[in-house]
C-alpha cells in the first residue's frame, strides 16, 4: 500500500503502488495529434470553401477546397497507420454504431474525405471561373472541351455544399472522440473540448488558407483565423478553470509546456492575423504561428490525457470526492 501526498494538499489518496487505475490512450505521436489537426483543418476549410464559393471568392475557395481534401485524405491515412491492424481499416465502416464516436467519426470522416475530394472536381470543369488548371499535364480533364464539361462543376458544387455539413462535424467530433473515454482530463472537459477543438481547427484552417491564398483574397481566412484563435484561447481558459484539480495535467509537465506554447503561438498568431493583410512576412509569421499553435494544442491534449491517465490521483480523487459527497447527502 502506498500513501502518496500529491502537490495539491486535498488530493491525498490511496493507490496500488502508484500504478494507474485506467490505461492511458495508446494512440501514437505524431499520428493521432496530427490527425486531430488535419481533421479539424479539413473540416473548417470545407466550411470556408463553401462560404467562399457562396460569396464568390474563388481564389480562397480553391485553396480551401484543396486544404479540405488534403487534410481529410492525409488525416485518414494517419488514422489507418495508427491502427494495430491497418489492413483492417475498412472494418471501421463494417457497421454504424451511434454509441461509438469513432464509428460515427469514421462515417463523418469518410463522408468528409469523399465530399471534399469530390468537391475538387468542380474547378476542373473548364467552365469554372478561377478553376484549377488541368491537374495532369497533357491530359485534358477540365475545361469547356473536356469530356466532363458541365458535369464536373455541378457535381463538385453539390459535394462542396454537402461538405459544408460534414466540415463542422469533422472539426468537432474528435472532441467527442477523446472525451468519450475514461481519461479524466478528457472526459471531464467534454463541455469545452469541442470549442477548443473547433477554435483550433478554425485557426489552423484560417492559417492554411491565409498562407495559400493571395493576401488580397485572404481576408476572410484571416478573420476565421482570428476568430478561431480567440475561440481556442477562451475555451482553453474556461476548460482549465472549470476542471480545477483535473486541469493540472494541462498545466504541468510536457503537456503543460505544449499547452502553454500553443496558447502563446495561437494568441500571437491570432493577433498577427489581424494585421497580417499588410505584408507577406506578417502573413507567413501569423500562418505559421497559428499552424504550430494548433498542432501544439493537439499534441498537448493527447499528452495531458496520457498524464491524467497515468497518475491514479486524477482517477481516484474525483471519484472519491463524488462518493463522499453522495455519502454526505445521504447522511444529511
Amino acid at each position: 500500500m502506498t500513501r502518496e501526498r500529491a502537490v495539491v494538499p486535498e488530493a491525498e489518496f490511496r493507490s496500488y503502488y502508484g500504478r494507474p487505475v485506467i490505461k492511458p490512450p495508446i494512440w501514437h505521436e505524431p499520428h493521432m495529434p496530427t490527425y486531430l489537426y488535419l481533421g479539424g483543418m479539413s473540416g473548417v476549410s470545407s466550411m470556408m470553401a463553401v462560404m467562399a464559393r457562396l460569396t464568390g471568392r474563388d481564389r480562397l475557395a480553391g485553396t480551401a477546397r484543396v486544404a479540405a481534401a488534403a487534410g481529410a485524405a492525409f488525416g485518414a491515412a494517419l488514422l489507418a497507420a495508427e491502427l494495430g491492424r491497418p489492413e483492417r481499416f475498412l472494418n471501421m465502416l463494417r457497421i454504424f454504431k451511434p454509441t461509438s464516436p469513432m464509428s460515427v467519426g469514421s462515417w463523418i470522416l469518410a463522408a468528409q474525405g469523399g465530399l471534399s475530394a469530390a468537391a475538387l472536381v468542380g474547378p476542373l470543369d473548364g467552365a469554372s471561373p478561377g478553376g484549377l488548371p488541368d491537374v495532369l499535364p497533357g491530359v485534358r480533364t477540365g475545361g469547356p472541351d473536356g469530356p466532363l464539361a458541365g458535369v464536373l462543376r455541378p457535381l463538385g458544387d453539390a459535394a462542396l455544399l454537402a461538405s459544408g455539413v460534414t466540415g463542422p462535424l469533422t472539426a468537432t467530433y474528435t472532441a467527442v472522440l477523446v472525451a468519450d473515454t475514461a481519461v479524466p482530463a478528457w472526459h471531464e472537459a467534454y463541455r469545452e473540448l469541442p470549442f477548443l477543438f473547433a477554435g483550433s481547427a478554425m485557426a489552423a484552417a484560417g492559417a492554411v488558407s491565409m498562407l495559400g491564398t493571395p493576401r488580397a483574397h485572404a481576408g476572410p481566412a484571416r478573420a476565421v483565423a482570428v476568430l478561431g484563435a480567440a475561440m481556442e484561447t477562451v475555451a482553453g481558459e474556461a476548460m482549465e478553470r472549470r476542471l480545477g484539480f483535473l486541469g493540472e495535467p494541462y498545466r504541468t509537465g510536457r503537456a503543460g509546456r505544449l499547452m502553454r506554447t500553443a496558447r502563446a503561438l495561437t494568441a500571437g498568431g491570432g493577433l498577427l492575423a489581424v494585421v497580417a493583410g499588410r505584408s507577406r512576412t506578417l502573413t507567413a509569421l501569423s500562418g505559421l504561428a497559428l499552424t504550430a499553435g494548433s498542432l501544439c494544442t493537439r499534441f498537448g491534449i493527447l499528452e495531458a490525457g496520457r498524464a491524467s491517465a497515468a497518475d491514479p490521483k486524477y482517477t481516484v480523487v474525483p471519484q472519491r470526492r463524488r462518493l463522499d459527497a453522495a455519502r454526505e447527502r445521504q447522511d444529511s
Partner: protein
Amino acid sequence: MAERMGFFTDTSVCIGCKACEVACKEWNQLPDDGFVFEATSYDNTGMLGASTWRHVAFIEQARPAPDGDDGVERWLMSSDVCKHCTHAACLDVCPTGALFRTEFDTVVVQSDICNGCGYCVPACPFGVIDRREEDGRAWKCTMCYDRQRGGLEPACAKACPTDSIQFGPLDELRSRAEERVARLRADGREEARLYGESPSDGVGGAGAFFLLLDEPEVYGLPPDPVVTTRDLPALWRWAGAAAVSAAGAVALAFLGPRGWGGSRGRGRWGGSRGLPGSHGVLGSRGGGGR
C-alpha cells in the same frame, strides 16, 4: 439469452497463489508479460493487460506498534479480472463491432474483426482491456467464452483452490456475496464490502464483482467508475454547439460587419448575391493590390 453468468471474487479467502493467472494464460494461450522484478510485494505482473487477464494484487498493510516497529498486519490479496460491465464502455465505443455481448451476458472481443483502433483501451474505467503491440489487436478476459459454451466453468475459477473465485449465475452469486459480507461483518470484520455488485452503480453493475477488505483504490480499482458513454448525449450536444458556433464564426468571417472578406470573385452562385465588399479592418489594405 441464457442466464447472466458472472464471477464473484471473494478476496477474504484469496491466498495469492496466482493459479488463476497461470490457468488463464494456459487455457487462453496468452504470451508472457516479460520477466521483471517489480519489488511490489509478490506482484510482478503489475496490472491487467492484453496478456494478463487475471491479475493478483498484493497489498501489505502495516500496523503501527508501540516500539515504532511497523510489522505487517494484513496482506491483502485480490485477483482482478475484467468486470464484464452491464454498461460496458469498451463495447459501446468499439467502432467495428469486434466487441460484442454474448449469450451469457459477458463482453468478448472477436479477434478476427478487431482492427486495433485502440479506442476501447482508454474507454474502460477499470483499465482492463489493452492492445497487444506485437499483435495489434485488443485483448481481454472472455470469461472463457469457449469453455462456457462447452459447459465448463472458466479456467481461473476452476483452478482457484480456496474458492476465492466463484463462477455462476450472477443473481445467485450476488445473494451468496451478500450473505458472506454479512457473516464477515458479524465476525467483526466491518471493513468487508462488495464492489461492483450493485446494478445502480456507474456501470450498471459488474458481471465480475468483488468482496474487498479495504477501499477499492487500495487494490488499484476505481472507487466510483462510470461508463463514459453515459454522458455521450451531452458530449454530442456540446460538440454540436461547437460545430454550429464554428460554422457561425466562419460565416461571420465571410459575411461579418462591413464585409470582413477580401476581394470577391464572381462565382456562378453567390457572386452576385454576395454582400458588397469593402476594406474593413481585417481586409487587406491593398485590396487586390497584388
